C-alpha cells in the first residue's frame, strides 16, 4: 500500500489555501461571489448544438466517460455534450423529476428494470425507426433484443454482464476445502461446499451467502426449471412451486450451517469493501460479473469465478446475458440526430471504448469488446472472457421487467426477510409473491 504520511503534505490544502477559502466565502456576499450560480453565465455555445447526457456512477466512471466524449466532440465539431452524473438512487429521482417537468436529458443511462416505465408511456425514442443512424450489426442477437418491447427498441446496452459465483480461494485453501468444478456443479454441490467450509472453519467463516431476494439470481434458478420470472409478454411466468423450491433450498442450507443464520448479514449496502466476503466472513457469494475487478481487489485478489450451479442438471440453461446500463434517447429530445450520432459513437467507436473500458460492463459490440480486451486489467479480462464465452452458447433470453415490477421486487425482499425470520414458510412466501405480483401487474 502507498500510505506514506508524507504524501499528505504535498496535495493537502495548505494554510494559505484555507485562508484564501475563508476570504472567498466572505466575498460570497460581495460582488466577486456573484456570477457563478446567479444566472450570470451565458447558456450554451451560440449556434452549436448542445446535448445533455446523464448517467449514474462514481467519479471514476465520469472521468473515463469524459475522455470518450472528448474524442466524440473532436470528431463532431459544433456538438458539445453537457454531462451530469449521480449515484444510482438520486439519479433515478432526478431523472423522473426532469421527465415530469418536460425537461428530459437527450441521452441517458437507463436500467433494464425501469426502461418500460418510461418506454410504455412514450417517453423514449423508438430506435428501430433510426436503424441507419445507429449501427447494431455487431451486437449479438441477445444484446440487440435486451431493450425490445413489442418489436420496438428503446435502448441499446452500454455494456453486458451476467451473474457468477465467486469463491475466496484463500479461505478454501486455509481450511482445505476443494472448490467444485464451476462448469458442472449442482445446487447440491453448492450446499455441500458451504457445509464443508462452515464445518472446517468452526463457524468462523460461513460457506455461502447471497441475496435471497435478488430477482437476477432467482431468475437463473427459475430458468433452469423451464420457467421465466417475467415472460416475453411481461406477464408473471414463475410458478409457486419454483419459488417454494428456492426458499426451501436456502432454508435447508441455513439449517445445516452452510448459509449464515438469520440476522448475521446486515443490509449495509453493496459496495465491495463492505461485503461480508471482503471481511472474510463468507467464502462464496454471487456477484454481477462486471464488478469482479473491484470485488477481487477488496478480497486481496483471491477470488475464483465460477458459473452458477445447476447449469448442466436443469431442464435448460439458467444463465443469460443481461446489461447493467442501457443508453436511451428521450422522445422529446430537441436534437435527436446528434443524440443518435452520440449513441452510435458510444456503442461502436473502438477508440472511445478504449477509454471507457468495462466500467458499464463488457461492450455490447463484440468487435469492440475484442479490441479493448488487451488493454484491460487482468481481472477485467477474466470477466470479459467469461462473458464472451457465455455469449457463444445457447442461452435463454432475458426479458424486460414490465411496469409495476418495482412493487414485485420490493415485495420479494419483504417476503424473503419474513422467510429468514420464519414468519412465513417457503410455500406461504411463494403464494404471497405470486398473488401480489399478479395484482401489481394488473393480471
Amino acid at each position, binding site marked *: 500500500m502507498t500510505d506514506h504520511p508524507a504524501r499528505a503534505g504535498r496535495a493537502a490544502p495548505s494554510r494559505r489555501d484555507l485562508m484564501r477559502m475563508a476570504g472567498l466565502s466572505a466575498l460570497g456576499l460581495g460582488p466577486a461571489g456573484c456570477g457563478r450560480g446567479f444566472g450570470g453565465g451565458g447558456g450554451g455555445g451560440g449556434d452549436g448544438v448542445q446535448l445533455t447526457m446523464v448517467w449514474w456512477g462514481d467519479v471514476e466512471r465520469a472521468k473515463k466517460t469524459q475522455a470518450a466524449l472528448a474524442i466524440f466532440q473532436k470528431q463532431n465539431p459544433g456538438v458539445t455534450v453537457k454531462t451530469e452524473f449521480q449515484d444510482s438512487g438520486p439519479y433515478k429521482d432526478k431523472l423522473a423529476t426532469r421527465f415530469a417537468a418536460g425537461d428530459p436529458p437527450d441521452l441517458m443511462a437507463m436500467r433494464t428494470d425501469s426502461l418500460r416505465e418510461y418506454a410504455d408511456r412514450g417517453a423514449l425514442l423508438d430506435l428501430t425507426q433510426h436503424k441507419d443512424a445507429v449501427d447494431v450489426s455487431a451486437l449479438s442477437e441477445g444484446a440487440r433484443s435486451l431493450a425490445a418491447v413489442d418489436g420496438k427498441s428503446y435502448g441499446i446496452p452500454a455494456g453486458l454482464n451476467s451473474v457468477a459465483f465467486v469463491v475466496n480461494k484463500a479461505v478454501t485453501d486455509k481450511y482445505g476445502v476443494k472448490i467444485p468444478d464451476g462448469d458442472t456443479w449442482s445446487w447440491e454441490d453448492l450446499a455441500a461446499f458451504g457445509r464443508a467450509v462452515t464445518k472446517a472453519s468452526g463457524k468462523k467463516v460461513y460457506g455461502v451467502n447471497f441475496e435471497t431476494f435478488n430477482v437476477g439470481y432467482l431468475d437463473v434458478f427459475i430458468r433452469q426449471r423451464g420457467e421465466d420470472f417475467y415472460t416475453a409478454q411481461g406477464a408473471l411466468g414463475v410458478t409457486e412451486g419454483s419459488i417454494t423450491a428456492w426458499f426451501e433450498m436456502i432454508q435447508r442450507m441455513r439449517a445445516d450451517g452452510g448459509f449464515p443464520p438469520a440476522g448475521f448479514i446486515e443490509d449495509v449496502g453493496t459496495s465491495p469493501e463492505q461485503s461480508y466476503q471482503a471481511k472474510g466472513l463468507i467464502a462464496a457469494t454471487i456477484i454481477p460479473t462486471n464488478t469482479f475487478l473491484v470485488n477481487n481487489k477488496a478480497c486481496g485478489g483471491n477470488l475464483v469465478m465460477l458459473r452458477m450451479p445447476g447449469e448442466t442438471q436443469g431442464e435448460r440453461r439458467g444463465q443469460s446475458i443481461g446489461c447493467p446500463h442501457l443508453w436511451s434517447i428521450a422522445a422529446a429530445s430537441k436534437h435527436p440526430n446528434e443524440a443518435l450520432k452520440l449513441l452510435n459513437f458510444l456503442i461502436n467507436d473502438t477508440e472511445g471504448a478504449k477509454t471507457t473500458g468495462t466500467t458499464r460492463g463488457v461492450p455490447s459490440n463484440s468487435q469492440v469488446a475484442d479490441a479493448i480486451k488487451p488493454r484491460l486489467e487482468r481481472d477485467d479480462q477474466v470477466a470479459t472472457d467469461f462473458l464472451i464465452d457465455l455469449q457463444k452458447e445457447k442461452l435463454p433470453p432475458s426479458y424486460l421487467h414490465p411496469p409495476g415490477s418495482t412493487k414485485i421486487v*420490493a415485495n420479494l425482499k419483504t417476503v424473503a*426477510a419474513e422467510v429468514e425470520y420464519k414468519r412465513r414458510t417457503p410455500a406461504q412466501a411463494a403464494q404471497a409473491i405470486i398473488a401480489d405480483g399478479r395484482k401489481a401487474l394488473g393480471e
Partner: protein
Amino acid sequence: MTGTTAGPALVAGPAAQTPPPAPPAKRRQDRAGYLFLLPWFVGMLFTVIPFFASLYLAFTDYNLLTPPRWTGLANFREMLGDPLLHQALKVTFIYTFVSVPLSLAAALGVAMLLSRGVRGLPVYRAVFYLPSLLGGSVAIVLLWKYIFGLDGIVNGLLGWFGIEGPAWTADPDHALTTLIVLHIWTFGSPMVIFLAGLRQIPVMYYEAAAIDGASRWRRFRSITLPLLSPIIFFNLIQSLISSFQTFTQGFVMSNGTGGPANSTLFYNLYLYQKGFSQFDMGYASAMAWMLLVIIAAFTALNFLAAKYWVHYDN
C-alpha cells in the same frame, strides 16, 4: 401547469371575505401587520402553487410521464384497502408516540442540568449537540448498523450481563427500536431550543423563590415549567410534525426499502416509493394530503390543550 387551475379559486377564499370598514386604529394595526408579513405573503406564492398542484394531483392518476387523469376519489378508496399503507401508519405512529416524549424528556432534562451553570458548559453543549449535526449522514447510519449488529458493541455490552442480543437492525422485530434510539440520540436540537428558552426566564423569579425557601421541585413546578411552557409547546409541536414526516433516517437505514420486512416502512418512505419508484404520484399526493389531515388533527388537539398548560404573558 397542472395546479394553477385549482390554485387561484382556493387562494381567493379568505381575501374575498373582506370585513366591513374598520376603525382607524384597527386599520393601522392591520397595515403594520401586513407590512411585517409582506415577505411571507410573497413567499406563499411559491408555496401555494405547488401545494394546490399536489392537492389536484391527489384526485388523479398521475405517472409523472403522461398528463394526470382525473379519477375522483379512486386514490383515497385504494388507500383504505392498502395493507402497506396500514403498516406504514402503524410504524409511524409507534415511532412518533415512543420517540417524541422520550427525546423531549431527555432534551429538557439535559438542558436543565446544563442551564444550572455547570463548569465547562459550552463544551458539554457542543458535545450533546454533535449527534444532531451528524444525524442522517450515510456514515453515521453505517456505523449504527455495526453498533447494533449481531456482533456489535450493544450485544457485546449485553453479553456482560449474560444476555444474548438479537441482530437489532436486521431483525424485523427490533429494527424500529434502533431507529427510535437513533432519534433519541439526536435530542440536541430540542435541547438547544430549551436552553435558549431557559435563558429567557428572568433570574429575579428564582431569587425571590430562594428567599421564600422554595424547594427545587417547587421552583421547577412553579417557575421553570410555566415560563418555559411556550417553548415546550413549540418543541412538542415541532417534534410531532417532524417525526410524523420522518424520512431520511429510515431511508438511509434500509436503503430506501423500509425493511427488514417493512418493519421500518415510514409513511413518508412509502409515499416516496409510490411517487418516485413506482411512478404513482397521484397516489403519493393523496397520501400526502391524508398525512396533512392527520398531523393537522394532532396539532389542533395540542393547540386546544395548550389553553390549559401553556402560559403566555398576555
